[in-house]
Every structure is written in structure tokens, then in C-alpha cells.
């Protein structure tokens, strides 16, 4: 693909000669010539142009009728006259604008879009100053909630069909449709069901008028009162680029900010709507000290630092630190410096295993769309782990790529937990699919699931397939945490000392909400003499933490994250947190232990970068971070067998997954509640048939004295022998479970 010859053609637009690649759209070609061809419906990211709005009508020499520039591509010798020089084209454009406006309400002063509305802008630039329409305008019931997060105003809708095209050909959920026809056409959800999907919020941004608005942002701010801060979403390892609109120190909305290699301007609903967790009712804004068993009371910062110092000293190095993987690199490094250099506390519970084994196979996510063969191994749905990757996979499929997934719900079904074996098989000489991966020019392998040793297994596969030798081939490992790798690297960079396991644990330091919510960490706390936790929410700290320091959100921090491609990206403080951030108080504490630590993330990054990132500066990362070149890893790839797995025990295997719409932030956002995973146990149709249960049947899933009551859902794509449950509904269950009817009858 990279070798494809690009032929250039010469054409004239409004008398200006331009040379552009053949096949470039005329709207873009005109832009090259410095000429604006206004559009409403045209949006190349939505697939082929539809020519619906007629705003881009132009005169093409040799064609008697006006043509839509958006549906035509540059050809050699073409002569185009836009509305700027052609009277006829100008009449066409006037006509279009007048027709769009005849039924459009004049409610710009109260419309959320007013001030940043393409229709308003183009009307100011090209439109009539007065209306000739004297009849009553079309009216509809409004606004209609098409989901708890999105409101639809059909009167404002100009029927550009961007939203339905997004739903049909980008997210491919098919839930937004046009109903009726002609002047009675309206946008609707299929069967009036709520628009449920991982990417529904993108239609708000796609809408060129105020027809689709965010219920969170409705009447919250006007474009001229807001400040837009470019940052990075910190809720999954993709690291989509975002803009946070803030007003009076509060985040009012989150928009996508197109990074063509990472997200192409799409954002999942978690990234878009979860920001209101900043204002959660149980947000911690002051340090808290435990009183009695389940009480917490606010204390001063001086008191808190005093107490923290005391706890750290008292533990005498018998300290374990549990990290979340959502800390910035700077935060994690600061904590590591304090604890490791200041206190010799080297023991840490890292959120997940990460390493650099895949750096040799590094690619931008956008390479997925160019791929010819993509193979995904692992049991976790890609969309739950790294949602935007799912969009890239869909785009790849539409572009003709073959996408094969090998896992418990894969296109090729595998028993649960056999991804490592699958990798070994693919790498072996006998695998037909492996052979095709070797033969393909552009082959990509992806690990989506638990295990995988931070990518070393996948690196073993990619190496065996020779993917590092091919330009557009590579591998992606989908981590479980947004910045697990950066956190791991930062922790490691602070000291070379070996880690020891203190027993008993004097102090457990819990960093962040994910660690605070982790049952494994809670179990450690049972064995610890005291617990110092940093978290945003009181309910995550109640009953087990002795001292709680307020946590901050990714939207409130300056710092860097490392995403799943290995790209370092910059988080910006979009709003000031309600309390000093982690790095600030870590630096204060560090001072008490004689450790030099700057409270400024940029200086911390400089120090760390010199150690482990070859001195790369924040300036080089910039607002749209570049992808570092593929690098030789220090970690050896590994395809060796896993330690012997448990032999088959009675009952069924429980497979849990972390749903995209889960976690401390999502739980605190009313608009996202309807998207959270249902209390369901997924069964294969084979197992359901064997056990005599059907969709909706209530069953108890039991293991070792714990029982969870769930509704059965038959998933035809699921491999037999597995019960799949969202992790939040499987608390306390072990990996082998038994199914029972509510009557107590055991299903077997």
C-alpha cells in the first residue's frame, strides 16, 4: 500500500490551477486551492459521500447540470467553478440554504449549538438575510431523549444523515434510522428503543446543527464562555485524544480531538460522558482520618501529612504499595521515589504485567485499516478492553481485511483460557492460519484478554511469524489499565533494588481508585497493620483505610500516559482539582524523608525521561503525540508453555470480563447507568440446552459458599463449558462454578 504510485492531476478551481493526487475529493482539492466549498452532509469518515444536502453544488465544465463537489473526485483537466465565481453555482447554494432554513427554527439564542454551529456559520457567510417563508414551520414533539445521554430535536434536524450513516457504517450498530419520507422524514432509533452502544455520543459531534445534543451539556454553557483544553482520555489504554470544554472551573463536556493514528476523531461513550464523576456526591476533597470502625472525618492537610509521615516511619520499610495503572507516569515515579529511595520500600502490587517485548512490532492503530489479515487471540471482547480498536477493526473489515478472532466468543471458537496454546499453534508449522499470516504483506496480531504476560507471548508469535520484517505488519497487546505500562516503568526507574515481601505488612499504600476497588488489594489490607489510601471517592475508602488522601481524575492532572501502542501522550490539567494533587503532596512528604522530588510534572518527566525515555521532551510529545519508532526490546519474547493449569474440576468454568461501562467513574454517572452490564450469566446454546435453561431463566451461580443470582442469557457465539459474567456481578466467585436453579436443584 505504501508503495502505491500516487498519480497527480492538474485541475482548475475558480481559475486557480492546482495539482492534487488523482481521486482526491473536490472539496479537499478546493481546499488545496484555498477555496471553501461549504458542506453539511459531507464527512469522509462516514464512508462514501451521499450528496444529500446539496450545499456543495458547483459548475463543472462540460456538464450542463450543477454537480455536488462532495461526490466527485479530481480528474485531470477538470475545470470547476464554485459559488464564488459561478452565478449558477451561487444560485444553487442560495437555494440549498434557503430550503434548509425554511423549516429550521429560529431558536439559535437558546440552542446549545449556537456559536459553534456550521448551519449558523454558513448562513452568516452565504445565506439570505431575510426569509420568504410565511407558512407555519414543521413542528415535532421535542426534545426526544433517544437515550439518557442524547436528546433529539427533530425541528432543528436538517436531515444530513450523518448520524444514521455513523450508526450504519462506522459503529455498525444500525440503531439510528430515518423514518417516514419526504418532508415527514425524521431521525429515530430503531423501534424507539434507547440508543445503546459504545459510541453513540459521536453523533452529537457529527450533527451540524443542534438536533442531537448531550443531555449533560444542555443549557450548561455557550461556546464563547468555555475554554477548550486539549488532553487525553485516561479511561482505557487507547488514549483517545480529547478536548475538555470547561466553564468557570468545571468540565462541561468532553469532545473528541482527532488523532488520525489513534482515534480518527471517534470517542467512546465512557470517554465522552464519564467526566461528571468529578462532581460525584462522595468525592473526597479533604484528607480523612478513620474514626471508629466505619467513620471518616476530615482533617487538615498539615495534620494529614504529619499522620502520613508517622505511618510511613512506623512501618519501617515494611510497606507494600498497590498501584492502579491510571496514575500518570510522573505520579507513579514520584511515589516510587518517595517510597523506594526515601524508605527502602520496594514491594509493589503492579496493576498488570507489562513490558517492552512488543516494541519491535510497533504500529499506529490506524495501520489496522490497511491490514489484509488480522488475527485476534484471547477471551476478552476487544470492544470492552479498548473500544476504539473495535472501530478500527470494523473499518478494516469494510476495507476488505479478513479479521479472525480465536477465543471463547471468536469467529473460531476456542475453549476459555487457551490463548497461549493458540499462539503456539499459530506459530507452529502446521497452522494454516499461521501460514497465511506469514504470507500476508500486511498482517497484524492482537492479544485481547487476560494473561499474555504483558505481550511476551504475542511477541513470541509475532516473531515466529516474521512480522517485524514487514513494514505494515505488527502486533498489539491490549492492556487492562490505561497506563499500566507507564506506571510499571516509572516504578522500576526509581530504584534498582530487588523487591522483598514484608511480612507482616506494616503499611499498605493504595494508590488510586482501581487499586482501592480491587478485591486482591482489599485482601492484602486485611493483613496490613495500617492502610493509607488515595482515592477520589469516599465509598471506596470507608471501613478499611486509616488515612485517606484525596485523589484526582485524569482530567485534573498534568502528566504523561503511555498507551497501548507505546505512545507517550500528554494529559493536561483541564480543571483545578478540589484538593492538591498526588504529586504535590507526594513531594511534600518526600521532603520530610530527604528525597528531592519536584511537585511539577514537567520537571519530574524531564528527570524520568533522561533515565528511561532517551531524553524525549514534552515539546516533542506535543498535542498530537508521535509514535516512537519500533525498538528492539529488552524483554525476550516467550512462547513457552504456561505453568501447568488446574486439571478439569467438576462444574463449569467461570469467565469474567471487565465491561467497558464499569468502574468507579461510570458508576457515578447517571447517563451511563443504562449501559452497564446486565446481571446476566452467558451460556452457550449447547450448555443451555443440556442444562435445560433458556433466555431469562434465573439461576444461581455458586462456588465455594458464594452464590450469585443472575439471569441466563444464551450467547450463540460462546464456546461450550463456560459461564461468562461481567466481573462486577461475579464478586466472590472462583473459577469453577456450579449452576443451580433458585429451588436449589443443581444443573448438570
Amino acid at each position: 500500500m505504501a508503495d502505491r504510485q500516487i498519480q497527480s492531476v492538474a485541475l482548475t478551481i475558480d481559475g486557480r490551477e492546482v495539482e492534487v493526487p488523482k481521486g482526491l475529493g473536490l472539496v479537499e482539492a478546493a481546499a488545496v486551492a484555498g477555496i471553501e466549498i461549504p458542506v453539511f452532509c459531507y464527512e469522509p469518515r462516514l464512508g462514501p459521500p451521499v450528496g444529500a444536502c446539496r450545499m456543495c453544488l458547483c459548475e463543472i465544465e462540460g456538464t450542463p447540470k450543477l454537480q455536488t463537489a462532495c461526490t466527485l473526485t479530481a480528474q485531470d483537466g477538470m475545470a470547476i467553478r464554485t459559488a464564488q465565481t459561478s452565478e449558477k453555482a451561487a444560485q444553487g447554494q442560495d437555494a440549498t440554504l434557503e430550503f434548509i432554513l425554511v423549516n429550521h427554527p429560529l431558536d439559535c439564542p437558546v440552542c446549545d449549538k449556537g456559536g459553534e454551529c456550521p448551519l449558523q456559520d454558513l448562513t452568516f457567510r452565504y445565506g439570505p438575510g431575510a426569509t420568504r417563508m410565511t407558512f407555519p414551520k414543521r413542528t415535532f414533539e421535542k426534545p426526544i431523549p433517544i437515550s439518557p445521554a442524547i436528546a433529539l430535536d427533530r425541528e432543528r434536524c436538517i436531515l444530513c444523515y450523518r448520524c444514521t450513516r455513523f450508526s450504519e457504517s462506522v459503529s455498525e450498530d444500525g440503531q439510528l434510522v430515518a423514518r417516514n419520507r419526504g418532508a415527514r422524514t425524521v431521525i429515530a432509533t430503531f423501534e424507539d428503543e434507547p440508543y445503546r452502544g459504545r459510541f453513540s455520543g459521536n453523533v452529537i459531534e457529527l450533527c451540524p446543527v443542534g438536533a442531537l445534543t448531550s443531555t449533560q451539556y444542555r443549557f450548561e454553557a455557550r461556546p464563547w464562555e468555555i475554554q477548550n483544553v486539549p488532553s487525553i482520555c485516561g479511561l482505557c489504554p487507547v488514549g483517545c485524544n480529547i478536548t475538555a470544554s470547561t466553564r468557570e472551573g468545571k468540565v462541561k463536556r468532553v469532545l473528541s480531538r482527532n488523532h488520525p493514528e489513534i482515534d480518527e476523531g471517534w470517542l467512546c461513550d465512557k470517554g465522552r460522558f464519564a467526566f461528571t464523576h468529578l462532581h460525584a456526591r462522595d468525592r473526597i476533597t479533604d484528607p480523612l482520618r478513620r474514626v471508629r470502625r466505619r467513620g471518616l472525618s476530615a482533617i487538615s492537610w498539615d495534620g494529614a501529612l504529619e499522620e502520613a509521615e508517622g505511618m510511613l516511619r512506623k512501618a519501617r520499610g515494611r510497606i507494600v504499595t498497590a498501584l492502579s495503572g491510571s496514575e500518570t507516569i510522573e505520579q507513579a515515579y514520584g511515589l516510587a521515589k518517595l517510597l523506594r529511595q526515601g524508605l527502602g520500600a520496594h514491594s509493589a502490587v503492579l496493576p498488570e504485567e507489562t513490558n517492552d517485548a512488543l516494541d519491535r512490532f510497533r504500529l499506529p492503530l490506524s495501520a489496522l485499516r490497511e491490514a489484509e489479515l488480522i488475527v485476534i487471540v484471547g477471551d476478552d471482547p476487544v470492544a470492552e478492553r479498548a473500544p476504539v480498536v473495535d472501530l478500527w477493526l470494523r473499518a478494516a473489515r469494510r476495507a476488505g481485511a479478513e479479521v479472525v478472532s480465536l477465543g471463547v466468543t471468536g469467529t473460531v471458537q476456542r475453549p476459555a483460557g487457551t490463548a497461549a496454546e493458540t499462539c503456539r499453534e499459530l506459530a507452529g508449522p502446521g497452522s494454516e492460519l499461521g501460514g497465511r499470516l506469514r504470507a500476508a504483506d500486511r498482517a497484524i496480531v492482537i492479544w485481547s484478554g487476560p494473561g499474555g504476560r504483558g505481550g511476551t507471548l504475542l511477541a513470541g508469535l509475532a516473531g515466529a511469524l516474521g512480522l517485524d520484517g514487514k513494514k505494515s505488519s505488527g502486533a498489539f497487546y491490549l492492556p487492562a489499565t490505561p497506563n499500566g505500562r507507564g506506571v510499571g516503568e516509572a516504578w522500576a526507574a526509581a530504584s534498582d533494588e530487588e523487591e522483598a515481601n514484608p511480612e507482616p505488612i506494616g503499611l499498605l499504600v493504595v494508590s488510586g481508585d482501581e487499586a482501592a476497588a480491587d478485591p486482591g488489594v482489599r485482601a492484602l489490607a486485611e493483613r496490613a497493620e495500617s492502610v493509607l489510601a488515595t482515592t477520589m471517592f469516599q465509598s471506596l475508602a470507608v471501613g478499611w483505610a486509616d488515612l485517606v488522601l484525596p485523589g484526582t481524575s485524569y482530567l485534573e492532572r498534568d502528566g504523561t500516559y503511555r498507551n497501548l501502542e507505546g505512545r507517550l501522550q500528554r494529559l493536561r490539567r483541564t480543571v483545578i482539582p478540589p484538593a492538591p494533587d498526588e504529586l504535590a503532596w507526594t513531594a511534600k512528604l518526600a521532603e520530610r524523608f530527604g528525597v528531592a522530588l519536584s511537585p511539577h510534572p514537567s520537571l519530574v518527566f524531564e528527570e524520568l525521561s533522561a533515565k528511561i525515555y532517551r531524553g524525549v521532551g514534552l515539546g516533542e510529545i506535543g498535542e498530537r503525540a508521535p509514535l516512537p519508532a519500533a525498538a528492539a526490546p529488552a524483554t525476550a519474547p516467550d512462547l513457552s508453555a504456561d505453568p501447568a493449569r488446574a486439571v478439569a474440576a467438576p462444574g463449569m468454568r467461570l469467565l469474567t470480563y471487565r465491561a467497558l461501562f464499569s468502574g468507579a467513574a461510570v458508576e457515578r454517572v447517571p447517563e451511563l447507568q443504562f449501559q452497564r452490564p446486565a446481571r446476566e450469566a452467558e451460556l452457550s446454546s449447547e450448555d443451555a440446552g443440556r442444562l435445560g435453561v433458556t433466555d431469562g431463566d434465573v439461576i444461581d451461580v455458586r462456588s465455594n459458599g458464594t452464590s450469585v443470582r443472575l439471569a441466563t442469557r444464551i450467547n450463540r457465539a460462546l464456546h461450550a463449558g463456560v459461564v461468562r459474567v461481567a466481573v462486577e456481578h461475579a464478586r466472590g466467585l472462583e473459577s469453577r462454578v456450579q449452576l443451580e436453579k433458585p429451588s436449589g436443584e443443581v444443573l448438570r
Partner: protein
Amino acid sequence: MPRASVVLADADERDLTKLDEYRAVGGYGALRSALALEPEQIIAELTGANLRGRGGAGFPMGRKASLIAKDSPKPTYLVVNADESEPGAFKDREIMLRTPHRLIEGCLITAHAIGSTSVFVYIRGEYLTEFEVLRTALEEVRQADLLGGVTIVLHRGAGAYICGEETALLDSLEGKRGLPRPRPPFPPVTGLYASPTQINNVQTIATVPKILELGSKEFAKLGVKTSPGTAVFSLSGNVVNPGNYELELGTPLRELIYDIGGGIPNGRAIKAIIPGGSSVPVLTPDQLDTPLDYNSIQAAGSFFGSAAVMVIDDRCCMVQLALRAAQFYMHESCGKCTPCREGTRWLVQLLEKIEDGRATHSDLDLLLSVCDRILGKSLCALGDFAVYPVSSYMAKFRDEFEAHVEQGGCPFAGESSIEGIVAPVELHERKSLSGSVDG
């Protein structure tokens, strides 16, 4: 000019819905000889016959077939447009009802010519009887083993005028909402399922067997040089003998209306003639000597269209008729492109105001301006179709529109009737099969 018989040949004498009867008059002989020819030879015959598409646009069929992409790795499809929905047109219905085998034979010959083994016949949803006749005929053909490996699919539409537009028809056939597609790409390159596709009207396809039978030279002797052959004219409106009449192209309008159609009932005066279905500009009595062929009608300022000749006598109020046409096109606008969706509604609002007597002279100018702003700017031809009746009635009967303004109401009030020309509004709404119209 004499009555001619090409697509309806022998249908008066025999029941050509039966395979045996059709075979008795030489039916499927053309197919046999066509299968012995190379595809290029058939296309050459069609090109030589200069058979122009009878669906309305008049594009030469042979040239269309020669545009089919030859190097495509995808299959080639033949699609027959039997979604006859233009007010005034009912010729395809007659052909399907009376000579279904000629249509099927035409399909098989054309499929061979373009190298296709899949034929889709998209039939207007309301044409249930026609569908059943075709289905029976197709079953006979299947049992007689005449298909030769070609699959013919009969697909019933769901009651949308727009699906007669060829690209909307393709979308509908694919199971999508029937909306026209932008062109390019054109169907011969990217048509049904993004594959090369030939789309023809029922009558065009049903003419193919006769061209093979007669030979292109003999066929070209029928009609006029620029438009050889025959057309089935659907004569309707205020005329004594409405019906379908197959005539050679070039037959004067007067002959059709007076000699064949028996003239205007009750000795009334003729006021206007719509020569090609409700979407084409109107002609006036002084144009009665216009020969009915593509070029002549175009020279007279209208279009041949679907050969649906609608006769209007002096009782008719042209504003009411324009309103009725505008209502139809508003109702049938698909809603995809702005000018048609918004413009047709505005036209109706303006025409209602005029007919009601609430309009001023400036409203008449606004009406023309709205027409002008739709014309040539919509995605498909439906926008233009909505404009032609309104703008041509205004151009030729402006005094009638002005009378509405000046008298503050319809000068024909109580007398005027558009019945017999087009269905009244209420009737159309009630009998609409277009599904949900709420909104």
C-alpha cells in the same frame, strides 16, 4: 399511421399469458436464435435498432448495454424496472398482464447479451395481479426448461414512487431504504450489490424479442428515424376511449386523442395535454399536431416520459391540478436531498394558498422562484418532476393563477373537476400503500 404491434403483438387474438399460445406465435424463437449469437452481436442488433429506453429518459438500450463494465470480477446483473408509478402511466401493467412471456423472453435475451445469469424484476407493490401473472408465466418457463441457467427473481416493491428511480430501486432491492444514489458511479459500473448492472423498463425489455425476430433493419423502419419502434400509449383523462394503445412512434398527438381516443366527451373543448405522465410539462391544443416521439415532444417543450397521455378539458382548474401534482410529489419525495424534500412542501403550501384565494401576486412570483430553486439541483429527477407541472402550468395558464389572486378564490369553484384526470387528494391518501405516513 396504422396501429402497430410489437410488444402487444397477437395479444388481442390469443391468450399470450399461456406458454403454448405464446410459442404458437413464435414465442421464444428469438431467444433460441439469440443464444446462438455472441453477446456482442446482440448488443449490435439493439444498437442498430436504436431502441430508446421506454422508461422515460429515452437512453439507447444498446449503448447502455455496451457500458457494462467488462473487467469486473463481480457478477453482472439485469434489473427490470416494473415499478410503474407515474400518475397517468399504465402501459407496463398491460404488457405484464397480457404478454408476460415476451417480457421474460426479453429478459433472457438481454441477460445473455450482457453476460448475466441473474435477473431481478422489481414490480410495483400495488401490481399484485401482474405479479401473479408473471409468476405463473415464469413457472411455466421454468418447467419448460427455457431459463438456461438464468435465475429470474420477481421482487415486489412496497409502495414508493421513488423506487422507480433506478438507483433507489437498487437500494430497495438490496433491502435498504429506497433512496437515490449519487452518480457517478453509474449502475453499469457500480449497480446492484456494487456490481455492473443493466437496468431497463418493462417495455424496453419486452421489445427485445421482436428486434431479434424482425432484425434491427426491419425494426428501425417502424416509427421515426430518431426513435424507431412503437410505444404503448396510456391514454387517460377527459377522453372518450381511454386505454392503452400501441402505436408507432411519430404518431401525431391529434390522431391518438381524436381518431383513436374518440375525442373529448360531451363535445367539450380541449384545454391542455400532458404527453408523458404527470411529471412532464403541459402542452396546449395548438400543439396537437406534435408527433409523439422523443425529439418532437422535446422540441415542443415537454418530454416523451412514460408515454402517458393525459387529456384535460376546459372544466379543469390548472391551479387545482398543479396542487394535486405537487401534493403527489411532496408525498413521494424520499427526503434524502434538501431541495426536493423542503421545496415540494413549500410548493404545496403556496399552491394551497393560491387555490384558497389567499395569495397575492408576489406569491405567484415566489412560486416560480421556488420552482427555479428546485429545478436541476436535486439529487435525482424527482425534484424536477415536481417542478415541471407547476412551472409549465404557470407559464401557459398564468391568467388562471392570477384570476385566483384577483377573485380571492377559485374561478372554477363548484364546476372544476380534476376527477378523471388524477385521483383526488383524499382518495390518494386513503388508498396509499406507502406504509406509515404519520409524522
